[in-house]
Structure formats: C-alpha cells, structure tokens
C-alpha cells in the first residue's frame, strides 16, 4: 500500500459503491411469484434474506436484507443487481468466483460469497420445485 493509500477506507471501490448505495435493499412482499431464502445466523455475524420475484422463466427483480460485514452487503447488493431479467438457467450458472473478481473481494472474505450463493441456490431450488410455468409450456401440453 502506498502512503496515500492509508488515507482511504481499506475497501475496494466496488464494495464501497454497493455498501453506501445498496441495490434492492429491503424485502419483497410475499406472494405466489416471490421466492425467499434466509441463510446464515446473526449470532454468528452474518445473516442474509434474499427475495426474488419471478414471472415465468425469468426473474423480474430481487431484494435483500443483510446483517454482516461490508463484503456481505456489497455481494448481496451486487447479486440483486445481477438477478433482474435473468432466466432460471442463467442464474444457475452464477459463479461467486466471478463476483469475487469483479468486486475485488479478498480471499479471507470468500465465505461471505458462499453465503450469497447459498441464498441464490435456495431460491433457485424453490423455483425449480414449482415446475414449469404454465405460460412457458407449449400449447396443448
């Protein structure tokens, strides 16, 4: 770190951006099109609630609530931004490592990304468990 580096908060720019301006902060209301997953435990220092609204085979929007370090908040916010407009298959290919690189998250904080992945995986499992959306089925099937 350069001497001038000590005058800045020790977080990557992407993390600071999401931490101070989180996307989709909050919780989507319950409903038939809402997926919801709660992962982590507050007593252990990290808890994440992810809600995703889906229509057919596509996620419309998402929101999150988080208790945890800046990396968790940033990663959750980044995921929420990523989710909107993606199909189930596209979200199934979401990779926490790519997010880690994009946000410059240090290795010792990768466990926060695994928590975010757990939340997305749980939502996807709910989505798949619903079966194909009637609107996406071929006519007559």
């Amino acid at each position: 770190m350069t001497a001038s580096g000590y005058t800045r908060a020790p977080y990557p720019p992407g993390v600071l951006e999401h931490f101070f301006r989180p996307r989709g902060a909050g919780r989507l209301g319950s409903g038939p099109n809402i997926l919801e997953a709660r992962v982590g435990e507050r007593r252990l220092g990290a808890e994440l609630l992810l809600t995703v609204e889906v229509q057919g085979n596509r996620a419309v929007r998402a929101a999150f609530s988080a208790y945890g370090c800046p990396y968790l908040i940033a990663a959750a916010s980044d995921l929420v931004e990523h989710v909107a407009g993606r199909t189930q298959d596209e979200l199934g290919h979401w990779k926490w490592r790519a997010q880690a690189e994009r946000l410059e998250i240090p290795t010792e904080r990768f466990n926060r990304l695994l928590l975010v992945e757990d939340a997305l995986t749980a939502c996807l499992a709910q989505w798949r468990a619903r079966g194909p959306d009637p609107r996406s089925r071929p006519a007559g099937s």
Partner: protein
Amino acid sequence: MNGGDELYFDYAATTPVDPAVAARMATCLADRTLQGNASSIGHRAGRRARALVEEARLQIGAAIAADARGIVFTSGATEADNLAVIGAARFNAHRGRHLVSAKTEHKAVLDALAVLTREGFEVTLLKPALDGLVDPVQVAQALRPDTVLVSLMHVNNEIGVVQDIAAVGRICRERNVLLHVDAAQSVGKLPVDVRAMSADLVSFSAHKAYGPKGVGLLWVRPEPRLGVEPLLRGGGQENGLRSGTLATHQIVGMAEAFIVARRELERDVAAARDLAQRLLAGLAALGGVELNGHPDQRVPGIVNVTVHGVEGESLRLALDGIALSSGSACASSSPEASYVLRGLGRTDALAESSLRFSLGRYTTAAEVDAALAIAARGIERLRALAPA
C-alpha cells in the same frame, strides 16, 4: 486536528500538539546553542541543554505533584511501563516472584508481564467488575507473601474508568508490595498527584496530553530509592536507568504540555464533560446504545458505547468520516476483539460493535453534532438493512 474533512474523535489515541508546546519545541530546535548533548556538561552547549532538561524535570514534577528526582525520561509510556514492570520485578526478584495486575491493563503492561512469566514469575490477573472497576479488596485478596509488584492503570484507555489508586496504594504500602501505576491517560483529564497515589512507579506519556509523540517518563520512587533493573544500557543517563541521549526538545515539549494541562485542567474537564454529555445523549436517542464502563467513576472525555443491532465492521465503515477507535481491531494492529470489553463480559460480537469516541481540548459542539449526524445516519441505515 483532523484528516481533511474528517472529524477527530480519537484523543485517547493521541492528541494534537498544543501551540504553546510546538512553539517551545521550535525554539529549542531552531537555536543551535540549545542543541548540545545534555550529558556533555563539560562545555556550555551541553550545559545549556542540560539546564533545559533539568528545568523541564522540575516543571513536570510540579505538574504531577511528584519528587522530580524520581523522573526518568523515556520514549513514551510503553517504554515506561516495560521498564517499571520488568525492571522492578527483576531487580526485586529476591523478595518474591509473584505479580498482580488486571485483565484490562494496557498491552504494554500485559506483554511485559508475559515476558516475566517466561522467566518464571507467576502473574495473577484480576477480573474487573462489569463496570470496569477493580475493587481494592480484590487486590488485597490477591496478594501473597511472595508478591513483589502490583501494576494497575489509573485511567483506562478504552473505557475511561478511573481506578481507586490511592486505596490500592495504601494496601500495597501496608503489605510492603511495590505499586506501579500506568497513568498514561491521566494528565489533563483529572488532577494528578503522584504523592497521593502511594505508588512506587508511575508511567506517563506526553502525546496523550497535547505534547509531542516519542517522549514519556517513568517516575521511580527516589526516597527511599527503589531498585529497578534498566532495560537499555549504554551511556548511563537518567541515573543509569535509561541510557540514551536525552531528547531535549521532546522533554521541554512534554514539560510545556504538562504545565498547560495543569493550568487548563478545570476548563478542559468542564468542556469535555459538556461535550461528552451532548454526545452520549445524542447516541442514546438512537436506542440500543449502551455506555461501557462505570457511569460516574470515569474521565469525561472517553465515551465508549456498544451499539446493538449492527455488525461491527459495517458500523465502522458506515461511520467513515469520524476518526475514532472501535472494539475490533480491524483498524488497529491487533487481530481480535477488544480484550478490555471482553474482560467486562461483552461477547466478541458486542465488543466489535463498540465505538470509542474520545474528545478533547479542540473538540467543538458543532463537531459533536456533525459526528452524531453521521452516526445516526449510519446506524439507522444498517439497522434498516438487517433482516427482521
């Protein structure tokens, strides 16, 4: 003092240098005739420097109500603590090898004790009550026939509580046990009276009291003279207790700082009390904010609070713009939650979501209000972000 537009609330870590101190030091540094070696008293340049050092010694002695003959100048309170604990224990080991201190002492004392443990000394670390105070009765009960030294801090650097040193001093005198007091945080925050402490060794720092960094002192009881084994060897300065060329400009700076601290004590304390009350009231209004340490037996300028319902690291980042210390050590040099707060029964998580605001001579009400605004915005935002 602030870093650009940052609000400075870290006076317990270090204070800005008082202008009078800077002026006196600058004079010392600018005048070549004052820059001789204070140990070289064979010529006028050395004697001039020596005169400045000895004048400063007397001024400091008067400021802390101590026999000036006992003052040993050091590089700071850390060195003074090390010299006191290690030096006194080693020199007096023939009297016993048991030491008593508290879990909430500064690392300069605890790590010095750890050195002695490896040399075969036994250490009893007292656990303070949940308010941070050590009951003198605890000290009395911990003493053994082979106890040689008790080390207890006057003002705790993290939570600001003030220990009843005079009572502990009386107990130690009755039991013929040496007492070391770490008073690094005391000058300028409350009246300092070394004689009333009944202590044998007392550590001080200059930079906690608007003096320069890099200088402090250990007061060593001169009458009857207390034996202390030096840590540094060489030129034999300071009666052989601390070899090394005396830093004349630093020493006169410390003297000026202690003079100003004594002169301004009432005003500084009253101002700190008003500002601390304003700060604490504003924080309390947020709800879920708890003061750490005894509510009354404390110095006013250190306000340590635990903020419930927020995670510690995010709390610190959310309060970016305020220079303060936290109960975690991501921002300091130690990788764990504050051992002082854990010693008071706080969990790691609560210790990490604790903040130490420390204010001082140059803090203004406007700065307190600005810090409160940042704190309120950050804390409310994080609480709103947390899952219900």
